[in-house]
């Protein structure tokens, strides 16, 4: 009886330790290595190799070789007859984003906040077709929509999605399907936002310069005055430098007060007035969202389909020296030389618009081929403008449709090239040592009609496994 009672504190300590242990650390420590053996590996430009094994540990690819000695207790997957590719990357998706919405233009919105981490059905559908990373645009409005995010479809508890980059790009839409006057207004507003942001940025920079000058002058002024006052002033200056920006905002106010106090004594000794503190411009968080784009740190994605809208976007990029990405670009072929000269990148959307729409009637339907011919870099997404994220499922089909006109490798475009496009090529888009273990096992070459996804790994963990096919059907479908 006594003994059993004495065990309780120990058990309690063990329980507490267990509860306090970080889940991910535990997972990494206890996670068994994964070895995918004897797969056919498809990589860029049609290169392929048979009988390749891949060792995954801690969510990353550790080794790619013909023969791997599987570590003790590792999970071994025999992939004989199967094809292994990197997870597909959709550079323009609406996955997990609530469709519709008609909000006002506001750059402060972030796609990450709108992403439904519990949209399990939709996310699993995308995974079941091999998609493991998506770029999400906030969408839902014309004009500036906000910041787009790159999200990896990794499962964490019940929720999905690991945000790789919160502010991957600033997104805007010129509303190509609106009437001419409405489109003019959208363009005018967008340009004004950038103008205001630039002016705001300049005002803030001028203020910073003036503030530095002011501090110097103030210090000089105080040195010139009585010893006691000079001590006070130096004391205050040292606290100024410690407090940083906000401190600096308040400091001159104080010094002004003390300066006011000094005035009477100054008047007695010297007629010289203290320097005047510069006035800080009112901060505008909306306009500050444009700063990173104006600095060229992040690209600006503009949805533009019509020739006029594409021209306006190019003009905007030139005026503000933006790193522009044209999205949609249905009529790109009409001004292909201008696009080439402007040195921009293009994201083509899903299927071309219906031939019955105004844009569709003028569309050439061969943008892909023409852009490639002109040497304009482009990638392909499933289309953030589509009604739902469902289109992400058929990213590879979409890429294959484009390949029919430019004959480039459809798989590379949605893996390696897409990763480069998002600036994530050191982490995803390739099967190589040190890369994230986002891998897809297909029943055959994914471009073959009957190919199916058998298994999908995200960060080395099984994210999707196909239900076993009914006897006979799979064999026939592969013909």
């Amino acid at each position, binding site marked *: 009886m006594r003994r059993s009672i004495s065990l309780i504190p120990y058990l309690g300590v063990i329980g507490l330790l267990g509860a306090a242990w970080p889940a991910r650390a535990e997972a990494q420590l206890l996670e068994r290595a994964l070895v995918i053996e004897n797969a056919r590996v498809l990589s860029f430009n049609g290169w392929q190799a048979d009988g390749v094994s891949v060792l995954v540990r801690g969510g990353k690819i550790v080794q790619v070789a013909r023969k791997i000695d599987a570590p003790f207790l590792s999970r071994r997957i025999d992939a004989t007859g199967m094809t292994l590719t990197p997870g597909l990357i959709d550079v323009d998706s609406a996955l997990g984003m609530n469709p519709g919405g008609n909000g006002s233009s506001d750059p402060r919105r972030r796609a990450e906040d709108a992403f439904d981490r519990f949209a399990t059905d939709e996310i699993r*559908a995308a995974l079941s*077709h091999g998609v493991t990373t998506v770029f999400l645009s906030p969408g839902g409005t014309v004009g500036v929509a906000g910041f787009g995010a790159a999200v990896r479809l990794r499962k964490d508890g019940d929720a999905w999605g690991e945000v790789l980059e919160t502010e991957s790009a600033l997104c805007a839409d010129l509303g190509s399907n609106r009437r001419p006057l409405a489109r003019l207004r959208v363009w005018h507003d967008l340009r004004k936002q950038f103008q205001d942001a630039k002016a705001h940025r300049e005002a803030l920079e001028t203020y910073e310069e003036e503030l530095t000058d002011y501090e110097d002058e103030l210090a000089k002024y105080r040195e010139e005055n009585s010893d006691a006052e000079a001590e006070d002033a130096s004391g205050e200056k040292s606290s100024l430098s410690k407090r940083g920006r906000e401190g600096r905002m308040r400091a001159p106010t104080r010094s002004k007060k003390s300066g006011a106090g000094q005035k009477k004594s100054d008047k007695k000794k010297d007629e010289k007035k203290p320097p005047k503190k510069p006035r800080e411009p009112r901060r505008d968080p909306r306009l500050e969202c444009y700063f990173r784009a104006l600095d060229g740190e992040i690209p600006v994605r503009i949805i533009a389909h019509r020739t006029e809208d594409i021209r306006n976007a190019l003009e905007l990029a030139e005026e503000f020296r933006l790193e522009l990405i044209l999205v949609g670009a249905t009529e790109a072929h009409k001004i292909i030389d201008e696009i080439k000269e402007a040195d921009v990148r293009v994201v083509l959307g*899903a*299927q*071309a618009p*219906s*031939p*019955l729409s105004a844009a569709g009637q003028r569309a050439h*339907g061969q943008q892909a081929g023409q852009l490639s011919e002109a040497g304009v870099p482009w990638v392909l997404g*499933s289309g953030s403008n*589509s*009604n*739902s994220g*469902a*289109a992400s*499922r*058929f990213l590879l*089909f*979409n890429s*294959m*449709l484009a*390949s*029919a*006109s430019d*004959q480039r490798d*459809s798989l590379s475009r949605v893996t390696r090239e897409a990763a480069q496009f998002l600036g994530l090529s050191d982490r995803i888009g390739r099967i190589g040592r040190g890369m994230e273990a986002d891998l897809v096992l297909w029943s055959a070459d994914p*471009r*073959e*009609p*009957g*190919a*199916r996804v058998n298994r999908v790994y995200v960060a080395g963990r099984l994210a999707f496994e196909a239900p076993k096919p*009914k006897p006979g*059907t799979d064999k*026939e*479908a*592969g*013909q």
Partner: protein
Amino acid sequence: MKITRWRGGRFAWVVTLCVASLLGTVLDARPTAAAKAVLVEGGRVLAKDGSLGANPGVLVADGKIAAVGGVDVERHRAAKLPTVRLAEQSVLSPGLIDLFSVVGAYGNNIETVRAIDPETRIVEVIDPTHRDLRSALEHGITTAMVCGAGANLIDGQGAVFRTHPKRHDDGALSLDAWEAASPLLIALGGSALRPDREPSSRTGAVSLLRSELVRAKKDKKSRDAVARFLRGETKGIAYAQTALDVQALLALLSEVGMATRPPVVTSTEVPYCLDELVAWGAPVVVGPYSFDSDTSELEGAAALAAAGVDVTFAGGVPVFSAKSPRITAALAVRHGVPANVARAGLTSQAARVAGIADRVGAIEVKAAADLVVFSDDPLRLDASVLRVWVGGVEVHRSDRSKREEIQQ
């Protein structure tokens, strides 16, 4: 004597000329006829059952397929007569057929004045020179079936035609239609309900359709389109989208009874009316599928195929892109339809649904030479159309195909 000889010489000269010209014609005749024949060899061929196999050589003459492999092909090959050589990966396919298309008739196939409207003829509104027809042709669709949009219960007679117009001696163009194949469209669905005429409710719709079918059935001598369809003299097609409408329509048609059960066009709720469609026994037209379609809809084709129903595809060109029939078939395959079934659904089975299986849809002797060369399996969406022949005449050749030939 001199004169006679001279006269005889002149006569002989004329005779010689005549004989020479005759001989020339005779000698010329064989090469001319043979020159018209073209052998398409190399690459692969899409067979009637939808499988892909090595091309035994397809000989095209007089607008028809004269031989598939065999002695004639060997003879043509030996004589080094005109030959089109295909690349190894290429596939020679019968022209694709877009069932339930709107090509050339968009906006003109919706007539809503009378709910029972059997005498409207879609063939009369299709512009043979419409650019949508050309676009469809360049994407490998050589035949289309256009029907009403289901805005009426009996929605007129559809049209089955080639997307390449017929050119007459005087240069005029006309639609190359198979009028005998025009199907009568019988539809049930929300779009047939209107506030300004009967029926305005589903109950009314079923009742109105029943009374019309019963009337036509009773009148054994009637020459109207509904009666002729029920007697099996003309073709028909049944259209409904929701499972409820499919069930009601098929029940109604079974109740009335008809000589031949018409194919059914339906897509969105196939899994929910699968049993009825299987029991009906006629082919089913699904699609158009798009990348936005619900998974349950995309799985419909596979469910039908697994149950032994013949599946074919609607492309919906130009409301959907001209690649839509292939996209629909490729999506169906990704969701479980065997590839052979899907390829047949684009060609031979589609011809059966359109009622022209004896003329197009398969590469076999005596079929019309409506042929398409794809750079790869047409179910692979990265395959492009290289060449199109209609009635043995090349009507489209892609830039890629021309480039490749120059390189060779």
